[in-house]
């Protein structure tokens, strides 16, 4: 950019936090995510009911003071179950995102740093993975290897890395010839320490943005799998709750309302945070 605004602001950049929270939406998103994490951590402690116990209340009791989000058809407390479910869903989201980011970082760094043949092979592989209908493959993986939460996380995590890997590769390629990298190389730093110590920290921004968005994506994917009967029945995730309570949606709206809106808010929040982080890492969005 040659419009000189950038050089005006370079002198005194607003702090990262400030840019992030300038976007009010991402501030709200962060708050919602924190609340959800708190709910997952404290919910089971705060809630007076055992989420697995049936008959802690009437069956299908509407929201009341004793059961703030009502009970389901087995008389289980929906709030207690949902707070358990938030934990499982967030677990799926974060672990899957972490997993795919790790794969993306490895592949992206190696591909971008070494270039040439290695790059060709890895990028062709990435392309293949990008082309594969991932949701379908996730369905297959879970259907074949069993609907356990670990398999679900692995299936989602294994399939979401190509975009991030490409982004990182591009970043690494542009960074690897910078002066500070060359000087590290001359100073005799090992390849690994150059990649992970010098280059990666500077290429991490887009990865974090992608990872945040993937948290939401993974939660939605998990819910989709649950709808197809491929959720882990022994781990009450929000998706599983939502799917199971759909049966009584017409009789007891509150049974779907809570898990459904919790997924909604969690995914929304993850996306808002992702947008905010994008502003933070994308210098174009900064110049303002």
């Amino acid at each position: 950019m040659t419009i000189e605004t950038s050089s005006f602001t370079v002198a005194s950049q607003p702090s990262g936090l400030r840019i992030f929270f300038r976007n009010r939406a991402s501030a709200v998103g962060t708050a919602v995510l924190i609340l959800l994490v708190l709910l997952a951590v404290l919910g089971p402690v705060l809630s007076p009911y055992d989420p697995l116990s049936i008959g802690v209340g009437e069956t299908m009791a509407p929201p009341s003071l004793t059961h703030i989000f009502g009970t389901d058809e087995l008389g289980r407390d929906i709030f207690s179950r949902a707070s358990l479910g938030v934990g499982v869903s967030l677990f799926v989201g974060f672990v899957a995102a972490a997993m795919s980011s790790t794969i993306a970082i490895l592949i992206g760094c190696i591909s971008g740093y070494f270039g040439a043949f290695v790059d060709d092979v890895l990028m062709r592989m990435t392309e293949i993975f990008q082309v594969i209908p991932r949701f379908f493959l996730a369905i297959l993986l879970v259907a074949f290897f069993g609907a356990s939460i670990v398999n679900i996380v692995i299936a989602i995590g294994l399939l979401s890395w190509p975009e991030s890997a490409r982004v990182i590769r591009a970043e690494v390629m542009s960074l690897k010839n910078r002066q500070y990298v060359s000087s590290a190389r001359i100073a005799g730093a090992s390849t690994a320490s150059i990649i992970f110590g010098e280059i990666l920290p500077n290429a991490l921004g887009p990865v974090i943005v992608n990872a945040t968005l993937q948290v939401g994506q993974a939660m939605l994917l998990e819910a989709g799998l649950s709808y197809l009967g491929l959720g882990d029945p022994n781990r009450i995730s929000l998706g599983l709750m939502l799917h199971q309570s759909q049966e009584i949606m017409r009789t007891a709206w509150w049974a779907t309302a809570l898990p459904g809106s919790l997924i909604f808010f969690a995914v929304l929040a993850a996306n808002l945070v992702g947008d905010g982080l994008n502003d933070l890492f994308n210098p174009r969005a900064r110049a303002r």
Partner: protein
Amino acid sequence: MVEATSKANGGDAVATDVAAAGKARAKRGIRFRYARYVARRLLQAVPIIVVIVLINFTLIQAAPGDPVYALIGQMETTPEYIAQVREEFGLDEPLPQQFLSYIAKIATFDLGYSFRFRQDVSGLIFERVPATFLLMGTALVISSLLGIGLGVIAGRRPFGWTDNAATIFALAGFSMPVFWLGQLVLLVFALKLPWFPVQGMVSLRAPSHGWGYIASVLHHLVLPATVYGIYHLTLIFRMTRIKMMDVLVQDFITTARSKGAGERRVLFVHALPNAILPVITVIGYNFGFMLAGSVLVETVFGWPGLGRLMYEAINARDYPLLLGLFVVISLFVIIANVLTDIIYALIDPRILYR
């Protein structure tokens, strides 16, 4: 590419002639490069197909669960009958043999025989394709147009109230599990307000023909296409918005303005074609995700397409059908990607010179 017909009816006639000659030469050159580019893209797709077939087979073979039960249905049977079925469908052959014959068959588009539906897999799949493409095409076109439109509006004034409103709207639809959204939409727009039918592709009770048939299909299309398209709309919208933000601060936009181009011209003639390039790639790459996502939408709305087939294939563990679906869907995705690359090159000729 915008090409003017060069009939000289004014200006410097000689100059126009010379210009026409130059244009023709440039055109020939670009055509050659174009053909070469398309051929290269097609060639690159071949190893992808091979790998996909391999992955498919490995995956499905590694799975637990005996496909013979998909064939038997819900009733009690004798072991002899199970053995008979097993033999009939070659399930007792060794694995490598199953795979080799599978590859040979795929080459001739013989994707095997579906246990569940007692029909050739390729026939089974291709008879469902039109319904899915109708649904997906509608969703894709509408959501792309809307998404790009909203993205341009929002990206023009980032962080303004229109931007925020559009962002929140798009994110809201995007953040709901599709099947739940589908059920809510049905409850509201099919039951409480009986505007649209609940399921199916056409009204069966009152069979219709010609325009009536088309109208009935369109009527049935509205809700599923909307729900189907929301995810895609958000994706397109966000991408367009970000790219518009990027492009609008680029230097050539300043050039365009400095020429005296108006705001609309700057937006749509100069900024949008540049912003839309990555958006086109996104459409291509998400084609696969969308096709697979049809399993949710089509199941909720009872739409008789590939998604429904997928759903039943998964439930029945119909191996040949699952393999076939995966191959065909991957093929579609590859074709979609090649097509988007070709469109990309139409808009951005730079790619031809790499």
